[in-house]
């Protein structure tokens, strides 16, 4: 039975999107030399704005501005002063929280419930957390008087645009680095709003520079000789290109890449809680989550019951207008991503897996994909091996704990994993054996600025968050 809800749309009036934006370099918005790209609302395909596709000259100017700010202002500034700027930023993010949440949902397609309750509060918390580190770095375990690295070139993805910006900028600035950040091609607007926040905080010019653009702009930034530190979140494929391009340089690199997380449900797990965790694991943010629990490993003896409960729950998911406060699953971020999700799903069917999608009406315009599960999936199937990055779950079964571990680790990725069981000793034993950077036991997709995040194997290297997250931004 589906519950009927009246629409409860969040007001768009809190945001003011300009027709076009320049680049944010040296404290000012300036026209770029490069071409223009449009950013659209994935829920409606409406063009929201135009931004610059920064070219080599633009990136040069941004890196030069960051270098000047590093040498003259931010590097020499006492940590306690840097801290106060970061606290200011955290507070302004809180003050403008609703505006940022609405803007994020419009540009990205994620439900307002998530941008409002997850993304934006975590952004503020992240700046608040790292602000406090700025004058305590000598206690972080990286030497008595650790120094910044220099200019950081940071490239972030479209799935959590503002949150990924916070993960990158907050620790970099706390440690005394300056940054040039490139937001994703399809989701530049909250990064540009953040540029205004930097202005409101009176952050010294050049400490934060935002260059918009697509992959080529990112490549120019990463490969720029004036960049000392590269931080990238995105696909494993691009991560490998970056690892090659920095070979032989002295650039420091952290990579937070793809995943194909196993969410393991044992026969003694509380079914209803596990179902909530599975849903949260794969349908949170439309499955556009690198640590999504995209492979469900369920113990054979409870597989039928669990799948029945999962399908019942999925039938209640509300897919639609991201700005509606009742919406559970929003829009796929772009036409290109929708195409990829469709292709891989069709492959799942053609390789012999059984497809089931939640019965839901999808809007006519925009990019949509119904929450979907595949059963009868084998480890050789591409939908069990490749990151789909969409609301698509592959279900496999296991009989023994050893088999569960074997299957969970049978992937080149190693970002996250989930364990559902009532037995504490089993949680600890399985968690020990999983080759993944984050293990959620009887929960999933939890994030916190104090908690280190990052992968094993081809999910990348380095950690973001917590004390560990400082290391990448301090000189050796």
């Amino acid at each position, binding site marked *: 039975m589906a519950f009927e809800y009246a629409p409860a749309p969040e007001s768009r009036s809190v945001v003011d999107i300009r027709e076009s934006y320049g680049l944010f370099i040296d404290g000012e918005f300036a026209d770029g030399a490069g071409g223009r790209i449009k950013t659209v609302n994935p829920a409606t395909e409406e063009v929201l704005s135009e931004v610059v596709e920064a070219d080599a000259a633009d990136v040069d100017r941004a890196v030069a501005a960051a270098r000047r700010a590093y040498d003259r202002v931010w590097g020499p500034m006492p940590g306690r002063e840097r801290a106060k700027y970061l606290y200011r930023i955290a507070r302004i993010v809180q003050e403008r929280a609703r505006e940022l949440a609405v803007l994020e949902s419009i540009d990205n397609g994620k439900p307002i419930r998530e941008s409002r309750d997850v993304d934006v509060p975590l952004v503020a*918390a992240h700046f608040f957390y790292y602000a406090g580190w700025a004058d305590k770095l000598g206690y972080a375990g990286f030497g008595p008087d650790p120094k910044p690295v220099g200019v950081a070139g940071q490239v972030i993805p479209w799935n959590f645009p503002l949150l990924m910006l916070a993960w990158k900028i907050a620790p970099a600035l706390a440690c005394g680095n300056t940054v040039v950040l490139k937001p994703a091609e399809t989701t530049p607007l909250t990064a540009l709003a953040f540029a205004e926040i930097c202005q409101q905080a009176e952050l010294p010019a050049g400490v934060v520079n935002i260059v918009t653009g697509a992959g080529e702009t990112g490549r120019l930034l990463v490969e720029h000789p004036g960049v000392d530190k590269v931080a990238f979140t995105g696909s494993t494929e691009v991560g490998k290109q970056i690892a090659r391009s920095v070979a032989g340089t002295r650039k420091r690199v952290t990579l937070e890449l793809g995943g194909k997380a196993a969410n393991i449900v044992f026969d003694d797990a509380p079914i209803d809680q596990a179902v909530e965790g599975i849903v949260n694991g794969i349908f949170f943010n439309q499955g556009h989550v690198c640590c999504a629990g995209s492979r469900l490993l369920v113990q054979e003896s409870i597989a039928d019951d669990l799948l029945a409960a999962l399908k019942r729950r999925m039938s209640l998911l509300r897919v639609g207008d991201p700005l509606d406060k009742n919406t559970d699953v929003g829009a796929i971020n772009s036409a290109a991503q929708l195409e990829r999700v469709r292709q891989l799903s069709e492959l799942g069917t053609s390789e012999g897996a059984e497809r089931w999608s939640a019965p839901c009406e999808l809007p006519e315009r925009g990019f949509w994909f119904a929450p979907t599960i595949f059963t009868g999936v084998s480890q050789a199937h591409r939908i069990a091996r490749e990151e789909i990055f969409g609301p698509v779950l592959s279900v496999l079964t296991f009989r023994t704990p050893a088999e569960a571990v074997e299957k969970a680790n049978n992937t080149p990725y190693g970002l996250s994993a989930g364990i559902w069981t009532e037995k504490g000793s089993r949680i600890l034993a399985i968690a020990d054996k999983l080759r993944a950077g*984050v293990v959620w036991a009887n929960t999933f997709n939890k994030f916190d600025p104090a908690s280190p995040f990052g992968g094993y*194997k081809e999910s990348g290297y380095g950690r973001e968050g917590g004390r560990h997250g400082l290391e990448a931004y301090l000189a050796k």
Partner: protein
Amino acid sequence: MPSDRLAVRKTYKLFIGGAFPRSESGRSYPVRSASGDFMANAALASRKDARDAVRAARSAFGKWSGATAYNRGQILYRVAEMLEGRRAQFVAEVTASGGDADEVDAAIDRWVWYAGWADKIAQVHGGANPVAGPFFNLSTPEPTGVVAVVAPPDSALLGLVSVIAPAIVTGNTVVVVAAEDRPLPAVTLAEVLATSDLPGGVVNVLTGRVAEIAPWLASHMDVDALDLAGVPDRQAATALEVAAADNLKRVLRPAETPVDWAAGPGVDRMLALMETKTVWHPKGV
């Protein structure tokens, strides 16, 4: 009497999976002392030997990384004891290739220093995280996996110990390419390891040409990390780092300036070969 007796020479072989095979290629190369005298024929390892060594290291990883930290510390300390017992032999080999006796003493002491880290590094670099919610949240450093190491060419024993010990003390397993022109102490170290309760395959020693073996290790998809301490040539190191990107190996680049291996090493090498795992669990009654 002793002057009439012909010495029994040692055959210097590879060390793979706890055994001492010759190179499957049947090749060897002459090792000469600093003064140019012939010392021994060392095995000239091949691509196949390198792959066998990686397989041995992978097989050993589960048990070694799963051993208690206390147990690993005991075994590493046992290695130091065995090193001390072989001190005279190491001094002879190291001095013949241009080193001195102090290097041997420093190598033994370095091994003792690392042995003590086994059950401390996780306390110093892991711990509870105060997250904003009702959750237990713990970060623990864990070994990265199989580490391929090119040992420093200039410090046949101390340099070698300084790259092996920090890798294995935390639970990694290692394939090490010994100093090309000074491989004999590495083989003798392997004999020490083989008699110290270190499980076979935790350390695998290859002797031979770095330029021949290292590319296969750098591109091997079952190697998790690559330590280029012994590749001072920038072009060669760059090529290896590029190859390592195929499966995103953690790469320890060679130092820009020559390393003083006698200086205190710090914890950087241990940390560079570890991953942090963070486990969450809800709190509730």
